[in-house]
């Protein structure tokens, strides 16, 4: 076979000066710039390109657009392999590599084709009736076989090496589709000055104008499209996005679109994204998405060589490719006659126009006669015959019932057109059946959307241009832009006549959904078995669920079901179209949010210092916090953490606590406000004092804990846990704005504005005296436990709180965040002579567990203040959020799991959080479950593991032995319930 043997000698929109080499299934071919993979394959006479899903039938190229059901390939190799890519939309690039799918060992000799022999068994839903015996065989035998057989292409299995972008855009008028109607709309609206965005799937604007020979304003349609494109490109208020599919309509005039930035290249340029996901907010939209041609359902209609009539015209006129040498046309619609005429003019032998209708317009017959094309009216194609290369002959049934064979290698079919209206239904609006169009047409529309051209059922060129102009004008005017009236572009075509017909009875398989191998017999079976709603039909047969989203198949299946069940198309309706209207790469919707950029990383001001100090970091929400600081020679984390704890308890340590939430509360009612959000009193807190507080949700369960410091009668600073900082802020703003707007109080989050360090240990005061002695008195008398003070340190404002989470003499010092790095270095320097060490969140956790302080593991959204041993803090003197519902019987039940300490009976035994608490000897059952271990630590001071747990009636059971049951880690430890305060219960160290 000569390379490029089906290429016409001249014509088309391809660039014959640019030859492009590519390969398919390992064989090399050549095409031209402007080709798609499909047109280049047809030019090279490659007709067999894939195998069908279920029966492994040989399949070829059926359409020339995104509705293609058959010609799916794996594009590219390695990590860039893209399965299920439609050959009809792949722009040819040099070095393109594509492979056929769903066949083994090769496309020509496919073992799976044996399924064809079993096809009488493989009817719709056959798997629901079988594979039940024996039960264990499903996962082991049947399902793996089904899974291997299913699917089409293979994903690469490797991380996608390309990048994706997201972008937001706003416009007055969004025009979806750059065919005749869309261009006319863009021209009309663009001239008004309104901000226009025009999105078109193709690489070249024009739509069908690029494939048909009709004229606009006296010049060929494709020329007119180039001319209009140039004018639009010159308008500063118009943005044209080619290779861009609008895939979804969302609320508030939001549209999702995908721009294929570099898919037409072998790989993206350096720093270029593969695709760009646009989120477009438009005041108005004009949908000009065109129409989709409908196949005819007849026996053997799936062979390579049976193609859509308009697709054939695209190959002839746009790509200068003859998809066959000896053709017939089968239709019930005037439009397909044009295909016959264009074929004949291109030198293809057209052996027959077979029209289902008994009569057609005389001018069509005249033209056929002129071109010497035999015409058969009231006739049908009942069967096709073919070999490995596809179609070889069709069986024609004439009006008089006689059948005859016609040798052809190309059959162009068309049952007419369906508006491509998916985007009109994304917000729940339903299309309406129109007898006049023999199609579903848009009815109610999303707010701000209008529909022009073939998408609205205007299948003729002149009418599409008129509608586009009118709706583009109206959309611009609706957004406040004046239009100087200009006439619509002119074309002088005739409206298209058609008679709807859907399928023919057939003794062999007549395909409705080509990709999913749904046949007319499957639809009949669904009707027989009661799956008569179009939605049930879809689910039972999988009609319309393939990658082509039913673009060519839904209507035929629905029509057949309507006929079988004696209902009209209006009654039976259509299934819902849902976003995306065209499949969208998952990577594009994720954008750059992957890998380490999945979520932002928050670093404290002291992060750089911590890195230099050999910190290991741990994620705490979005923050990275120092988990511990290993010293030379320390080989495991437990050694390091235990050393940090010992050093803090014997000397002094510093820990970055900047991530804790900080909320500035000011106003004359600040005290009253805090009284209402904390369970304890804050209006009585003296200035210069700090108090621990607990907040409940309105349902009575604990939300968060922390401290509030009072720096002035009308000024408090509230601290929250790291995890709940944003949630508490939202909660307090709710209380301020929604519950009690009458209070004089203002809130601002200052978490990021302050760096804060905890300095704890017996040497803490000496260290601070060394550091701050010249500006603030840190003596116990001047700054007793829970005191707080504001002062100026080295010309910057600073705050010092005498609080402790570790149970040691402790302080927290806060400085503006830009001085956070300087502050930690100053602290370390001043502390050197006292043996200061930095400690991380693990040591912090060990020390708080040793002191029985609760944290996130205990404040888990299901515990009450009483559960946590904090019930006494609940004020009897005032109301506060959560007070009333905290007194429900289920929350005051004495049987509730309550905080208790744990000690292993065997001092060597390790405890683990998440173990469940069982009575000794009790069977491990849900009924016997008495609680769970919340937090554990190795206590260096005690020399064994300790834990906190929530155990039914825990405080009353100190001294009792139980099982900490942990089967998922093979743990089963005998423990004693003890007080949760393991160290210094009198708090002597704290007050030291």
């Amino acid at each position, binding site marked *: 076979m000569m390379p490029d043997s089906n290429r016409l000698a001249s014509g088309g929109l391809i660039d014959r000066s640019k030859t492009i080499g590519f390969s398919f299934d390992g064989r090399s071919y050549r095409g031209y710039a402007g080709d798609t993979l499909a047109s280049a394959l047809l030019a090279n006479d490659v007709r067999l390109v894939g195998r069908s899903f279920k029966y492994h039938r040989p399949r070829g190229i059926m359409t020339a657009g995104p509705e293609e059901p058959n010609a799916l390939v794996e594009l590219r190799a390695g990590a860039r392999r893209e399965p299920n890519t439609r050959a009809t939309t792949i722009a040819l690039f040099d070095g393109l590599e594509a492979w056929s799918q769903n066949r083994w060992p090769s496309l020509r000799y496919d073992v799976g084709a044996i399924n064809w022999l079993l096809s009488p068994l493989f009817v719709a839903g056959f798997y629901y009736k079988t594979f039940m015996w024996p039960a264990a065989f499903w996962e082991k035998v049947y399902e793996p076989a089904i899974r291997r057989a299913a699917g089409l292409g293979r994903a690469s299995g490797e991380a996608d090496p390309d990048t994706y972008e997201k972008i937001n855009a706003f416009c007055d008028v969004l025009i979806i589709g750059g065919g005749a109607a869309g261009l006319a709309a863009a021209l009309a609206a663009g001239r008004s000055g309104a901000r226009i965005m025009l999105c078109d799937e193709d690489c070249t604007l024009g739509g069908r104008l690029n494939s048909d020979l009709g004229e606009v304003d006296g010049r060929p349609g494709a020329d007119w499209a180039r001319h209009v494109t140039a004018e639009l490109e010159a308008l500063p208020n118009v943005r044209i996005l080619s290779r861009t599919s609008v895939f979804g309509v*969302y*609320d*508030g*005039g*939001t549209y999702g679109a995908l721009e294929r930035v570099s898919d037409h290249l072998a790989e993206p340029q350096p720093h270029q994204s593969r695709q760009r996901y646009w989120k477009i*907010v438009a005041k108005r939209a004009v949908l000009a998405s065109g129409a989709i041609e409908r196949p005819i359902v007849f026996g053997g209609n799936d062979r390579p060589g049976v193609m859509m009539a308009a697709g054939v015209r695209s190959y002839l006129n746009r790509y200068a490719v003859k998809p066959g040498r000896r053709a017939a046309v089968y239709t019930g619609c005037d439009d397909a006659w044009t295909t016959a005429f264009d074929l004949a003019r291109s030198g293809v032998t057209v052996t027959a126009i077979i029209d289902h209708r008994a009569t057609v317009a005389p001018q069509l017959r005249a033209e056929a006669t002129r071109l010497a094309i035999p015409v058969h009216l009231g006739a049908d194609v009942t069967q096709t015959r073919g070999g490995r290369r596809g179609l070889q002959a069709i069986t024609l049934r004439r009006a008089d019932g006689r059948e005859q064979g016609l040798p052809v290698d190309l059959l162009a079919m068309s049952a007419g057109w369906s508006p491509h209206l998916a985007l009109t239904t994304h*917000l*729940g609006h339903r299309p309406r059946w129109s007898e006049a169009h023999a199609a579903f047409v848009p009815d109610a529309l999303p*707010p701000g959307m209008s529909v022009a051209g073939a998408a609205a059922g205007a299948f003729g060129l002149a009418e599409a241009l008129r509608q586009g102009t009118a709706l583009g004008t109206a959309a611009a005017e609706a957004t406040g832009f004046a239009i100087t009236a200009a006439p619509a572009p002119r074309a002088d075509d005739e409206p298209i006549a058609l008679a709807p017909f859907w399928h023919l009875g057939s003794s062999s398989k007549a395909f409705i959904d080509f990709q999913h191998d749904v046949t007319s017999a499957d639809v009949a079976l669904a009707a027989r078995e009661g799956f008569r709603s179009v939605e049930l039909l879809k689910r039972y047969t999988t009609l319309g669920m393939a990658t082509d989203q039913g673009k060519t198949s839904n209507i035929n299946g629905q029509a057949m079901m309507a006929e079988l069940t004696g209902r009209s198309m209006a009654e039976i309706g259509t299934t819902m179209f849902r976003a995306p209207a065209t499949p969208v790469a998952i990577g594009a919707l994720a954008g750059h949010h992957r890998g380490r950029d999945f979520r932002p990383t928050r670093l404290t001001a002291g992060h750089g210092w911590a890195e230099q100090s050999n910190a290991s970091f741990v994620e705490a929400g979005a923050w990275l916090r120092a988990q511990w600081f290993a010293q030379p020679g320390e080989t495991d984390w437990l050694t390091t953490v235990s050393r940090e704890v010992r050093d803090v308890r014997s000397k002094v340590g510093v820990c970055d606590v900047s991530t804790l939430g900080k909320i500035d509360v000011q106003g004359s009612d600040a005290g009253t406000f805090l009284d209402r959000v904390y369970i304890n009193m804050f209006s009585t807190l003296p200035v210069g004092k700090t108090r621990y507080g607990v907040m409940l949700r*309105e*349902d009575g369960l604990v939300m968060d804990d922390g401290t509030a410091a009072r720096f002035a009668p009308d000024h408090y600073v509230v601290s929250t846990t790291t995890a709940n900082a*944003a949630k508490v*802020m*939202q909660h307090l*703003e*709710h209380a301020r*704005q*929604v*519950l009690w*707007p009458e209070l004089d109080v203002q809130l601002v989050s200052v978490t990021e504005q302050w760096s804060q360090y905890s300095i704890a240990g017996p040497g803490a005061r000496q260290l601070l005296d060394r550091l701050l002695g010249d500006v603030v008195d840190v003596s116990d008398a001047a700054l007793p436990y829970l005191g707080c003070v504001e002062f100026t340190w080295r010309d910057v404002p600073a705050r010092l709180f005498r609080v402790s989470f570790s149970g040691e003499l402790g302080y927290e010092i806060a400085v503006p965040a830009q001085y956070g790095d300087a502050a930690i270095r100053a602290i370390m320097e001043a502390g050197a002579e006292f043996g200061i060490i930095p400690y991380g969140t693990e040591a912090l956790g060990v020390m708080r567990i040793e002191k029985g302080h609760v944290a996130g593991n205990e404040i888990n959204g299901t515990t009450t203040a009483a559960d946590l041993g904090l019930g006494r803090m609940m004020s009897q003197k005032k*109301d506060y959020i959560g*007070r*009333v*519902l905290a*007194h*429900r019987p289920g929350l005051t039940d004495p049987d509730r799991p309550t905080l208790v300490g744990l000690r292993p009976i065997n001092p060597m035994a390790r405890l683990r959080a998440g173990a469940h608490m069982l009575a000794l000897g009790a069977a491990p059952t849900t009924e016997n479950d008495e609680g769970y271990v919340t937090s554990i630590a190795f206590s260096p001071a005690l020399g064994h593991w300790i834990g906190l747990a929530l155990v039914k009636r825990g405080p009353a059971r100190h001294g009792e032995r139980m099982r900490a049951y942990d089967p998922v880690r093979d743990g089963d430890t005998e423990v004693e319930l003890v007080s949760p305060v393991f160290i210094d219960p009198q708090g002597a160290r704290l007050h030291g």
Partner: protein
Amino acid sequence: MRIPCPFCGERDVSEFAYHGDTAKRPDPATDDGQRRFFEAVYLRDNPAGPHRELWYHAQGCRSWLIVTRDVRTHEVLGAALATRGAA
């Protein structure tokens, strides 16, 4: 979905946190306080139609808004600052 924040202008829904209906906090002093708090906190009209609801402009001005929205169509019918529109 876009919400017209009275302070910031129309913004994408992703900037906002949703809270729920606009049930008032009951008077805690009444005898049947527990029943009334239960109803306010837990029970919902949950209508299929216009719904008055609270949103928080978390990624914006931090205003709490009372938004009226048709929950069948997601059409936003109005938005007011909760401090003003609480009545």
